[in-house]
C-alpha cells in the first residue's frame, strides 16, 4: 500500500516524501466531500455506519502518516490503540445500562415480593388498589413510592397488611402490559 520512505535525517527520523503528504491531504479532502455527499443519500440506519467508517479511515490516515505512527516505534501505536480500546469499553458498557433502563423501570413497578417491608405503604389516605407507578424519566410520571419507603417504620401492623394486599392487587393489574 505505502512505500517506506527511503530518506532519513541524521538521527534515523524518517522524512516523509512530499507526494505522500499531498496525497494524504488530497484523500482527506475527497473523503470529506464523500461524507457530505453520502449524507444526502438515504440509507436508513446505514448512513451513520458509512459516515463513521469514512471518519475512521480519515483518522487512520492522519494518525499513520501525519503523526508518523506508520514508521515510529510500535509502542506508540499501542498507546493510541489502548486509548481507543478503553473508550470502546467505557461507551459499550455504559450503553448496556442506558439502552435497557426502560425495562428496569418497568420491573420496579412490579415488586418481586410484595410482602417485604420496603413495599408497605403508610399512606392510608390513598385509595386501596391505587396503582403504583415506576419513577422513571422515561415513563414520564411521578409517584409516591419514595415517600412510602421512608415512612415504613411508622406503619402499624394492620395498615401494613392492608397495603401489602393493595400492592399485590395493583401489581397484578399493572403486570398486564409488561410481558
Amino acid at each position, binding site marked *: 500500500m505505502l512505500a517506506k520512505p527511503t530518506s532519513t*535525517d541524521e538521527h534515523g527520523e524518517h*522524512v*516523509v516524501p512530499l507526494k505522500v503528504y*499531498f496525497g494524504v491531504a488530497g484523500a482527506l479532502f475527497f473523503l470529506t466531500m464523500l461524507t457530505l455527499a453520502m449524507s444526502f443519500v438515504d440509507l436508513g440506519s446505514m448512513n451513520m455506519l458509512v*459516515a463513521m467508517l469514512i471518519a475512521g479511515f480519515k483518522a487512520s490516515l492522519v494518525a499513520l502518516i501525519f503523526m508518523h505512527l506508520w514508521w515510529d516505534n510500535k509502542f*506508540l501505536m499501542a498507546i493510541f490503540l489502548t486509548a481507543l480500546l478503553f473508550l470502546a469499553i467505557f*461507551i459499550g458498557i*455504559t450503553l448496556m445500562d442506558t439502552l435497557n433502563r426502560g425495562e428496569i423501570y418497568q420491573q420496579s413497578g412490579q415488586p418481586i415480593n410484595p410482602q417485604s417491608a420496603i413495599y408497605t405503604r403508610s399512606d392510608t389516605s390513598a385509595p386501596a388498589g391505587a396503582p403504583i407507578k415506576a419513577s422513571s424519566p422515561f415513563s414520564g410520571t411521578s409517584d409516591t413510592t419514595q415517600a412510602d419507603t421512608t415512612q415504613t417504620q411508622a406503619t402499624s401492623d394492620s395498615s401494613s397488611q392492608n397495603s401489602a394486599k393493595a400492592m399485590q392487587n395493583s401489581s397484578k393489574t399493572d403486570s398486564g402490559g409488561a410481558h
Partner: protein
Amino acid sequence: MSDATKAAEHPSYVQHHFASAEQQRETAKIGMWVFLLTEILLFGGLFGFYVFYRAWNPEMFYNAHKALNVTMGTVNTLVLITSSLTVALAIRSMQLGKRNQTIMFLSSTIGLAITFLVVKYFEYAEHYHLGELPGKFYHAHDIAGTNPHIFFSVYFTMTGLHAIHVIAGTIVMSWMLIRTLRRDFSSEYYTPLEMTGLYWHLVDIIWIFLYPLLYLIG
C-alpha cells in the same frame, strides 16, 4: 574522554539526564502520546454523552441538527485538514533544515487555526441570536421534538472543548514560531515542533469525528 567528544555526544539541546539525543526524543514522544491518550479519554466522555442521549432521542437529534450550518461545518473541516498538512510540512522542512519554509508553513497553520475560530464564532453567534443554547438557556421555538436543548448541550460542550483546544494549539504554535525565528531548532533538534504537530493532528482527528456526528445526521 576528551571534552570535544563529550560535546559531540551531549549537545546543548540534550538535557543532562538523558544519555543521548535519541533517548530524549523517544522519551518526549512516549510522554506526548500518553498525554494524547488522556485527551482521547477526555473527549471520550463527551462522545459518550452524545451516544447515550442520541440513543434516547434519535428523532430530536435529527430535527435539531438541521439548525447547524453544514456549509460552515464543511469549510471548517477542510480548513483543519489543510492546517494539519501545513504543520506536517513545517516539521518536514525543519527536518531538512529549511528554516524559512518552516516559518512560512507555521504561519499558515496559525492563520488557518484563526480562520477556523472565526468561522466557529459566526456559527456560535447565529445560534446565540436564535436562542439555540444549551440546557436552561435554550429558548428557540422552531425545532420539533422533545428537549432539543439536549442537542445544543452536546453541540456546545463538544465543539466548545474542541475550540478551546484549537485556541491552545494556536498559542503553542505561535510560541513555536517565535522559537523558530530565534533559531532554537535545527535539523538535529526539532522535538518541540514535532510534539506540537502531534497535538494539532489529534485536534484534527477529533474534528473529523465531530463533523459527521453533529452536522451530517442522516
